[in-house]
């Protein structure tokens, strides 16, 4: 700067004062050269400034066409980039002081200022203005950074937010005024509030706390958002504060949760499908085995009429089992999809007598005795009557199949269960004196058909299958020891079905 002349505009209507100033400049500028222009009114000053680059203005506030601070305002508003030093008289120092707040860099009192001070004042004014402009420019850049940041940025001090950026406003739904006028703790989800406030206070005190963590904020519309915070302690306007960057992770968390639940569902379906497949493969192998063997024996010895009849009826029997297996699977699929709502009335005597007939013909070598305790229950009204009858057939079949010896004893009872606070349900108990079911196997019931339990015979005729059916109908199937604690004394199956309305 010292090499170049300072282009200075002196705005002064009093020729004597103007001359004095010129003299002082000459006197005070041993190292600085001034390139001076003169104006004696506001109009001529503005006119001059329009055409010429100017480094500084010496401005008298009292001009023929403008007075006092209006003069400063007019010049400064049109040329905010040019530093101004106000020329004033002793009895108007008050206006000069006000001028400093209105954009002037300095003031000097005419006739009371040494020439060296005048020159220094002009040079300081130029330098101060340059620094101030640079600061404004730098602040603008930072402000732009803060305002356009995708993260929410906030400064917290004394439990309040001192600065928030537009993203904070968008994220919370609160206006800047709302955000900065109440304690920030009110923006935090009640479950996280104590933790966040405690960490803030410790951070302010300089204690070690995590800089990054997650918590929930409350938005204006009452919803909750998850945020990741990154916080540091800073000094804000001379006092301790925290600078906080918040990222809204609500959407990310929701997507993660969705993905997790989809994966779990897919895994469960796959496991279920595998269990089904395992049961099915085993069942089909068991059905096919005798079919293939009998057919092969017929092929080798086709001439024995007695055997032809016997073996072909065996093949037929197995074929019927396969077909019943498929219809059971279809039933299970159907019941899972349709959730039947129609109420059927099942006449118990008819049902039990048909079950007895079928079980006696299936197990001709067994001597089957069944005792009934039906009390006054003649019939029951339940959802999905056909499925219910099928379940009873499975339970009867199991009870007889797994009874030791040729004499089979079953006890069947029915009642209407009315427990307080619960809807009435039909309860049917079927007890056998068979092999019983060990506790570790019993524990698998109630988990629907998803029993990856290789101890069990197939889907089509087994208890897990029945469990699934009854569950789909809103009821439950319990497997207990006939004599509690001693599974070898036989099994008691309890079926509870909601009473149809």
């Amino acid at each position, binding site marked *: 700067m010292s090499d170049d002349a300072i282009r200075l505009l002196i705005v002064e209507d009093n020729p004597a004062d103007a001359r004095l100033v010129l003299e002082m400049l000459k006197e005070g500028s041993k190292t600085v050269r001034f390139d001076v222009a003169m104006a004696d009114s506001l109009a001529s000053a503005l006119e001059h400034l329009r055409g010429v680059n100017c480094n500084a203005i010496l401005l008298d506030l009292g001009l023929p066409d403008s007075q006092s601070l209006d003069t400063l305002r007019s010049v400064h508003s049109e040329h905010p980039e040019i530093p101004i030093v106000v020329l004033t008289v002793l009895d108007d120092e008050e206006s000069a002081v006000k001028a400093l707040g209105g954009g002037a860099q300095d003031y000097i009192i005419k006739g009371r200022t040494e020439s060296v001070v005048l020159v220094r004042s002009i040079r300081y004014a130029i330098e101060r203005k340059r620094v101030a402009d640079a600061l404004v420019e730098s602040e603008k850049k930072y402000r732009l950074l803060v305002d356009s940041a995708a993260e929410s940025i906030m400064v917290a001090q004394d439990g309040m937010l001192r600065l928030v950026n537009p993203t904070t406003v968008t994220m919370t739904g609160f206006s800047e005024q709302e955000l900065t006028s109440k304690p920030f703790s009110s923006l935090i989800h009640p479950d996280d509030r104590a933790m966040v406030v405690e960490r803030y206070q410790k951070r302010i005190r300089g204690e070690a706390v995590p800089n990054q963590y997650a918590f929930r904020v409350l938005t204006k519309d009452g919803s909750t958002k998850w945020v990741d915070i990154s916080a540091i302690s800073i000094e804000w306007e001379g006092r301790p504060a925290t600078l906080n960057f918040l990222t809204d992770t609500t959407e990310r968390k929701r997507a993660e949760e969705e993905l997790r639940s989809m994966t779990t569902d897919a895994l469960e379906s796959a496991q279920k499908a595998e269990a089904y497949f395992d049961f099915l493969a085993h069942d089909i192998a068991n059905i096919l085995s005798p079919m293939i063997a009998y057919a092969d024996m017929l092929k080798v010895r086709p001439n024995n009429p007695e055997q032809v009849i016997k073996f072909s009826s065996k093949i037929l029997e197995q074929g019927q089992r396969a077909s019943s297996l498929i219809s059971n699977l279809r039933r299970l699929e159907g019941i899972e999809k349709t959730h039947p709502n129609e109420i059927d009335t099942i006449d118990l005597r008819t049902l039990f007598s048909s079950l007895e007939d079928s079980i006696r013909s299936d197990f001709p070598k067994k001597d089957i005795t069944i005792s009934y305790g039906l009390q006054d229950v003649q019939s029951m009204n339940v959802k999905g009557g056909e499925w219910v009858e099928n379940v009873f057939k499975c339970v009867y079949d199991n009870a007889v199949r797994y009874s*030791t010896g040729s004499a089979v004893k079953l006890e069947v009872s029915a009642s209407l269960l009315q427990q307080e606070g619960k809807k009435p349900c039909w309860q049917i108990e079927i007890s056998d004196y068979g*092999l019983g079911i060990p506790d570790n196997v019993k524990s698998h019931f109630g988990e629907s058909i998803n029993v990856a339990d*290789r*101890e069990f*015979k197939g889907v089509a005729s087994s208890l897990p299958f029945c469990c699934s059916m009854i569950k789909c109908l809103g009821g439950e199937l319990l497997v207990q020891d006939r004599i509690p604690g001693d599974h070898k004394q036989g099994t008691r199956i309890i079926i509870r079905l909601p009473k149809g309305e």
Partner: protein
Amino acid sequence: MSDTAPSIFVVEDEKSFVELYDEIFKFAGFQLADWAFSGEEAVEKYRARTKDPDLIIMDHRLPGMNGVETMLQIIQMNPLAKILFVSADEHARALSLGNGAVGFLKKPFLPDAFIRSVKEGIFGRAERGG
């Protein structure tokens, strides 16, 4: 059926298999000594035996104890007991053979293969086809 016909004890919870085995035994000259529906019943019946069967045919998937567990109990009573596994569970093959079974036949099977397995089980592989 002569007294010298090999006697076979069947452990199988599927009635249709027991009936099938009985038919094939008649055809091949074997004798169904006895049969049990479960591992527990099999152990009890084996303990009460008056004569060792020539072979035990064992299913794997049974109510209660499974076939391999049942076999281990029987072998404890008689280390020379010959046990042939007949099962639809492929995974039971290694488990049964590794624990002392003389053979494993996968269901479904043809009667010829069954008879061959039974003979091998009783007489050993050297006399196969003899």
